[in-house]
Structure formats: C-alpha cells, structure tokens
C-alpha cells in the first residue's frame, strides 16, 4: 500500500496526463458518435434511404439496416479493429478516435431511435393538428420528449468507450491504456502491478467524472414536465 502511494506521488504528473487524455479521447469519440447517430436517426425516422426493392428483398427498413450495421460494428473485437484500422490510418490519436466512434454509435443510435418512436402518437397527431410542420414537430416535440432516452444511450456509450479506449494503447493511442499495457507487458518487474492497478482505477475515476457530468446534464436538459 505504501509503495503504491509512493508510485502514485512519484508519477502523478504523468498519470494525470494519461487520465486527461483518456477523458478527452472518450469525449471526442462520443461527441462525433452522437452527432452521427442523431443525424442518422432523425433522417431515418422520417425517410427510407434505401430503395423499396431493397427493403422488400431483405425485409428490413433502412432504420433497421442502420441498427444492424451499428450493432455489427460493436461486435468486432476491439483488438482486431484497432489492428485493422492501422494500415489505413496509421498510429496514434486518429485511428483511436475512429474506432471508439464506431463502437459508440450503436448505443446512441439505438436509444435515439427508441426515444423518437416512443413519443405518444396522440401527441404527434395533436402536433400535426395544430399546424406544426415536420421540422417544428421534431425540434419542439419529438426531440425534447425523446431526450432523456437519448442521454441514457450516450451514458452507456461513454461507459463502453472508456473500457475499450484502454485497448487503443496497442496502436500507440492516448490514455490510460499506456500504463496498463506497460505494466502487463513486464508483470513481475518493479511497479508493474502498480501500473496495472492505476490503469484500472483510472478508468473508474474517468467513468465517475462522466457519470457526475451526465447527472448534471440530464438534470438541466430534461424538461420539467417529463421528469420522473
């Protein structure tokens, strides 16, 4: 215990830097994934992108197709995905963010779709009946009502990406994967176990920060009338 505290204090600058990197790489990926998912869900909610002949042949709508692709992306082993992206995108931050974004899309997309379609049809009919156009209906009615569901999707995505981001270290990605993998690689050597513990606890700390952040976001962005 004493030696761990000594390790922490000796390496606090570096470790804090890794944690910060981890936090940011997750943040960027989630932001991009959210933007993509929201745009995709909004478009797919009202439009069929694929021609009818496709939907008929495969018996799925464009929306279901997009979800299927996103879920397929989520099932690719993370180790493999980082390896596969490396020839195209090289090493470092870019392939890390791309991979994490791919993983984050599914939970956000799924919840956005679910949230939008969970809006009471009577409310939507009333919205049409009072003369709201499609855009106004989306912004004033559907999105606010779906918002709590969307935010919880983003939270899930954050938790998934925090743990996957650790793997990014194999392509020289940023974050807490670095000390973790260093430690694992030379297990038994001086401070190696401390590094593993730190990588793990660091992820928990980053997750805790995000959780607090989202509690605040949810609190302030959920309309009062639908707060439970």
């Amino acid at each position: 215990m004493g030696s761990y505290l000594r390790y922490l204090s000796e390496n606090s600058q570096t470790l804090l830097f890794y944690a910060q990197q981890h936090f940011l790489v997750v943040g960027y990926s989630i932001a991009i994934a959210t933007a993509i998912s929201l745009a995709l869900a909004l478009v797919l909610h009202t439009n069929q992108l694929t021609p009818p002949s496709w939907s008929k042949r495969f018996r799925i709508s464009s929306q279901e197709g997009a979800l299927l692709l996103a879920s397929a992306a989520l099932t690719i082993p993370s180790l493999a995905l980082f390896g596969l992206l490396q020839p195209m995108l090289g090493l470092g931050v870019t392939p890390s963010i791309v991979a994490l974004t791919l993983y984050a899309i599914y939970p956000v997309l799924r919840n956005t779709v679910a949230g939008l379609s969970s809006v009471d049809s009577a409310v939507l009919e009333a919205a049409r009946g009072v003369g709201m156009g499609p855009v106004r209906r989306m912004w004033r009615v559907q999105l606010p009502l779906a918002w709590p569901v969307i935010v919880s999707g983003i939270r899930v995505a954050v938790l998934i990406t925090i743990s996957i981001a650790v793997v990014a270290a194999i392509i020289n990605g940023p974050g807490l994967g670095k000390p973790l993998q260093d430690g694992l690689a030379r297990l038994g050597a001086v401070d190696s176990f401390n590094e593993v513990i730190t990588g793990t606890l660091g992820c928990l700390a980053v997750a805790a920060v995000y959780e607090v952040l989202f509690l605040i976001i949810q609190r302030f962005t959920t309309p009062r009338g639908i707060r439970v």
Partner: protein
Amino acid sequence: MSETVQPMTDSSTRTGQRPMISLQGVSKTYPKQSKPAVAELSLDVPEGAIVMLIGPSGCGKTTTLKMMNRLIEPSSGRILLDGDDVTDVNGDQLRRRIGYVIQQVGLFPHLTIADNVAVVPKMLGWDKARVTRRVDELLRLVGMEPGDFRDRYPRQLSGGQQQRVGVARGLAADPPVMLMDEPFGAIDPITRERLQEEFLEVQRQVAKTICFVTHDLSEAVKLGDRIAVFGPGGRLAQYDTPDEVLTNPADEFVAEFVGSGAAVRRLSLLELSRLELEEVVISSGGAPTNRHPVLAVNDAGRPERWLHLPGSGDPPPLVVVPLSGTVYDAVDVMLDGRAPLVVVVDDDGQPRGALRWDALVGDLRTKGRLP
C-alpha cells in the same frame, strides 16, 4: 373582453345559413385499397352550427373530419372553408386556422398548461402580453382557474381536466371552425355528462362552427344541431336535424343504426310547447261534457284534481308537468304517478292543456317501439 381574430369571417354576417365548411364530391381511397373510405361526399356545415358525424366504426367519419383540416389529403373533390378553396393551400397554415381536439387529448407533456394552450398563438406570432391574456381568458372559459393551473404540467391533471385544456388549446387562436374527434369518448360517464353541458355553454359564448365525431347517439342528439349519419363504405346516409333523423330515418341502415330506443331519445327532443295539447275543461262543478277531461282548479287557477275523464269511471290521479319541459318529462311523471294523462301548466301554474298516454303512442309512433 375577448380576443377575436377572424382571418376569414366577418362576424356581422353570421346568418347561420352560409356554409362555413363545404365538402364537394370528396373521396378518399387509401393506398392499396380498392374500396374508398369516403366516397363522393358532399356536405355543407352551416356557420355557427354543431354538426355531429356519427356511424359505425370504419364508416369514414373520422377520415371525413381529418380531410376538413387536411390531416388526411382527399383523393378527389374540393374542400371549401368559408367560401375559400383550401384543397391546395399549405396544410400547416390551414390547420393553424382550425381548432382541433382529439379523444386522446395529446397535450404536450413537456410543456406547462399555459404553454400548451399558447402553442398556436405563438406560432402565429402574437406578442407575449396578448398570448398571456388569451391563455388566462381561455382557462377561465373552460372552468380552470389560471392561477392554479397555468404552471402545472399535463400529467398533474385528471382526464377531464386534460380535455378541458385540449378544448382551450383548440380555441386558442379563436378559429372560426373547431374539429373534434370523439373528444369525450375516453372520459368516465359522469364527467362526460358535465363536459358536454360545459361544452354547450362554451359554444353559446363562442359560437363556433363545429364538426364533432362521435359514436354515441345520445351525445349526437344532445349536442348536435344536425347529425350526419355515415353508412358503410363512406356513404352519407342521412344529414338532418336530430329530430328528423330519429323520426324519419332515411333508409333501412339509418333506421337500424338509430335502432331501438330512438323513440325514447326523441322524447327528450320534443318540447311540450311544440305539441298540440288536448283541451281541458275547467269546472267548478258544472255538468261534465263527454268530449274533454274536466279539471277542478283552486282559487289561484292551479289544477287541484280531475273531476271527470271521458271514457273512464273514476277520475285518475292528478299529475302536472311544466310547459317548458319535454315529452320525456311528461312520460316520466305519468309513469311515476300511474296516470293516463298529465296536465301541462305554464310558468304561472295555469293549466294549458293535457297530454294523454294514448295520444302519445299515437302521435310519436316512429317504429312502434314505445316502452
């Protein structure tokens, strides 16, 4: 003081005869269906009238209503609103000029009651003070104290209260026309009765042109100035006053739809003042005539008892009903008092005539089903 916005009407010409909504040969065939939901329908809704659209499910009454504000686009035909052809105008703009109230209410759960009511005025760009004034006025109109309810959310309200807000939202921009799709259908019977009364009271104040879909014949008879009975296949089977629909069903279908109980329902539409009452002889003890019943009155001229009833031995018990009542009331007191006839009195209690059970059966026979 009331806000009035009348983009389309000139209130001085409210004659009640001019059609406010006019459907001309309107048909609707849904995609992938061979039979039309509404076929070649022509219907004029007079200004200031409540027209009830009624019929069995799947008869096209809701489709017809939704074509009036183009929530459903007609396949063919024209729709005229106050003389203007609105078949091809922007649907959203059109719907802001027409009030719309639905059975499931559909209040926006994330908005306060005030914001819900204010939706259309805000879209129309009213300034804030005017919107606030209008919201308070409307909440008061539907019997909800603005101070108590303005800042609440829909989920904090009972079903009946929610529908009042729904009606207020429909009336918000003071549209000349209101479309109501079974607004009281999902509300418990007691509250429904009260809401219907309030609805008529509100209508007396605002005098809108109202189309009202219902599947409840009692509601149609109670609220409607006219009833449009829809038959299968989206055919308009009859369009007439409640009285006519109940008395003279246009065809087999309407007769069957109006069905048993039509005669009884009709009793409550028929005011005693509109009946030819039987003459009554007022007597202080003179010789009984053979033709008319003889009534003894007190010093104030009010009926006291029957002295003689032609064709029967003992004089029957005396029952009285006010002239302002309906035949339904007369039947009620006759049944209650086990009397074969009833004295109809005016506001001062003076006898104006009598109504006999026999005459009732003879006069009001529609399908020969009187209890």
